[in-house]
Structure formats: C-alpha cells, structure tokens
C-alpha cells in the first residue's frame, strides 16, 4: 500500500470510528469486546480498501463492523469460555417526582438503554442502524444482508416491542 492510499484510507474511513464503536457497543454490549472488534474491523477495512468503490464509507465500515461482531460472538460461543451477560435487569419503576431534570433525563436514558439491550439481536441491530446511525432502509438491508421488506418488518416489530417495554401510551391523537 502506498502512502497515498494510506492517507486516503485515513481521510475516508477513520473519521467514522465513533460510529463504528457505537455500533459495536450495541451489538456486543461490552466495551472491551467493542474496542477489539473495532480495531479488527479497521484492519480488515484496510485490507479490503481496494474493493471499496467510493460509496458511503460510513455504511461500508459499519457493514464490516457488523460482520466482525458477528464472527466475534460466534467465536466466543464456540469457545464457550465466556458466559454471555444478558441484561435481564428489570425496568426501573417510576420514581417519585424527581426535582432534578438532569437526573430525570439520566434515568430516562437508562430506561431506554435497558429496553434496547433486552431486544433480540436481529431487532437490536436494525433499531441501532436506524435510530442511532440514521441509515436508510436500503443501507440497512445491505449491511444486514436482507431485503428491504425484511428491514421494514423487523423495524416494525422492534418498535412495537419497544413501545411496550417503554410503556409508550398515546391516548389521544392530535
């Protein structure tokens, strides 16, 4: 690889490391695993940089992160050394009127975070790609390797579950 290629790689791909790390955090639910996977994915991206055709580099990198996470988890399961830490914590009960707005926001955030980690993998990944990474159905379909119709139905089911978990209740439509 020439210095020019390397510089191009650094310019095009490396700015998306935060997004890559965010996806890995949600998929693996472990900060150390996420770091290792993002490093592995970056090196893999470098190796396959020739094959990158110049589309959206972020979606391209996220697809690699998603595949690396998948492989990582499979390897872990095969090793059977690690006991998967399922977030089975119950949703917090509603606290009595907290006067502190920051505290309320923090607890709201924790509530949403818990709800999402309670989702099955295939739902969690489409929700994160859509709500956090803000990708289109087509991009999500490309990353996950399913048709757009499947992306839509998974998103719909995931949101339905989350509405229940988060106790979203809209009484009157405006």
């Amino acid at each position, binding site marked *: 690889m020439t210095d020019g290629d390397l510089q191009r790689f650094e310019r095009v791909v490396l700015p998306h490391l935060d997004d890559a790390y965010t996806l890995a955090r949600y998929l693996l639910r472990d900060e150390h695993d996420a770091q290792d996977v993002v490093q592995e994915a970056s090196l893999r991206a470098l190796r396959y940089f020739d094959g990158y055709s110049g589309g959206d580099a972020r979606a391209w990198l996220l697809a690699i992160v998603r595949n690396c996470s998948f492989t990582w988890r499979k390897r872990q399961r095969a090793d059977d050394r690690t006991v998967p830490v399922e977030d089975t914590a119950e949703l917090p009960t509603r606290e009595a009127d907290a006067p502190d707005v920051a505290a309320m926001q923090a607890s709201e955030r924790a509530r949403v*975070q818990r709800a999402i980690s309670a989702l099955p993998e295939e739902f969690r990944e489409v929700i994160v790609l859509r709500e956090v990474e803000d990708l289109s159905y087509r991009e999500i379909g490309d990353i996950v390797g399913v048709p757009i119709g499947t992306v*839509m139905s998974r998103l719909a089911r995931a949101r339905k579950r989350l509405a229940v978990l988060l106790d979203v209740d809209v009484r009157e439509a405006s």
Partner: protein
Amino acid sequence: MVCDTCRDSLEARLDDELTPDEAREIDRHLATCASCSRQFATLTETHRLLSENLMRYAAPDVLKARIRGAIAQAASPRVSVRAAPPWWRQLAAGILIAIASSGVTLTVVDRSRGGTAAAEELLASHVRSLMPGHLTDVVSTEQHTVKPWFNGRVDVSPAVPNLDGAGFPLVGGRADYVRGRVVPVVVYARRQHMINVYAWPSPSAGAASAKDLSRNGYHFVTWRSGGIEYWAVSDLNAAELHTFVATFSAAR
C-alpha cells in the same frame, strides 16, 4: 385507503422512506382515521424516545491511537528515514528561537545509520505500547507521581515536565526495553495521539542535536538536554510534535 394498507406504511412514513405522493396519501388517511392516527402517534413517540435517548459513544482516544498504530504497521512493517522536507527547515528556524532560551542548541543532522536503527526499534516499541494494557506501568497525570516511579527501575531520571498548559497532558510512564537496555518512557497525549518520550544517558554531553525522521505518519524527534538523549515518537503531525519538543525542552 383502507386501514390495513395504511398501517403497512406507517414505519416508512415515519422514516421518510415514501415518495411524496405516497406520503400525502397516508397523511390524508391519518387526518380522518383516529385509530391509525393513534397508532402513528405511538410510533412517533417511540421513535422520539429512542433517537433522543440512545447513547452515541465516542471511540476512546487510546483505541484510536491503537488503530492508527496498527494501521501504520500493517501498511508498512519497515520504517525508513526520509530526508527532512524543505518546509521543515523553515519550522526548524522557529524552533531554534523557541529553544534558544532554554539553553539547548539544535542542529539539523543528516540521516545516519544509527538513527535509522534506533528509529526502527522505537517505532516497534511505540506501536507495541499502543496495544491494550501496554502503554503505561504507572498511570498518572501528576508529574510528582511519575518521576519518582522511575527510581530503582531505570538508571536515568528523565525530565517529567507538566505540559497541561500547552495542551499536552501527562498520561503516565513505563519502563521499556529498547536498544539493549531498560529505559524510562514518559507518555503524553495530544487529542487522540499518544507521544512516547524515551530517555537514555547520553554518551556525549554538550550540544544537543535534533534529528527528524518520519515514516507512514510517524514522526521521531531526538534531542539532548542535561546529559540525557531524548527521543519523542508519535503519529502526531510533525509541526505539533516539534511544538511539543520545544515545550518539553523549555519546561523545568
């Protein structure tokens, strides 16, 4: 439009995946159908809760440094020395002025075999230091913790100036084995870049010489001060690394 058709498209309406015509048709139905409208409101509220509250994580600086290190190494396992580019000479003039006040003399030296070998070892050591858990033996942002830590571990007592004010926070220190001996390494940071400063007892006291080597985004600057030969290694850009060296040499 019947409700079943409408409900199939609510997700796509929310996510802006419909054509303008399709969207208008859904909106018309929602305006007249309380049941679909309520479902859409639930969906919208769920989406709002998620997009406002889901965490976006920043990749840790050390991870970014690790990745840059691993990438540079993968792209080229060998380091070589390049002659200083012309712009460097202009920069050197500026640094000369900066350093003159600290009693350190600085000259540009041609490439040398010894310098290349040292740079190769230092690059390997630098990259190794960015692997998980290898960067620091003593983690401290406090110079009075890091400096005494070297006592009894290495036979050189490097300067450990506090450069917080200049934007180079101290990260910590470690003992490393380079060029045939155990040497102290003081670690500083600049944004997501790590700077390793190696120190050796200098074979010759007196005037300091500065060599500037670089390869694949890594820069090396060496200088001598107080009978100690220092090497700073980083993937930081050359200009900022020189600012760092100037600040380091000037600080006491």
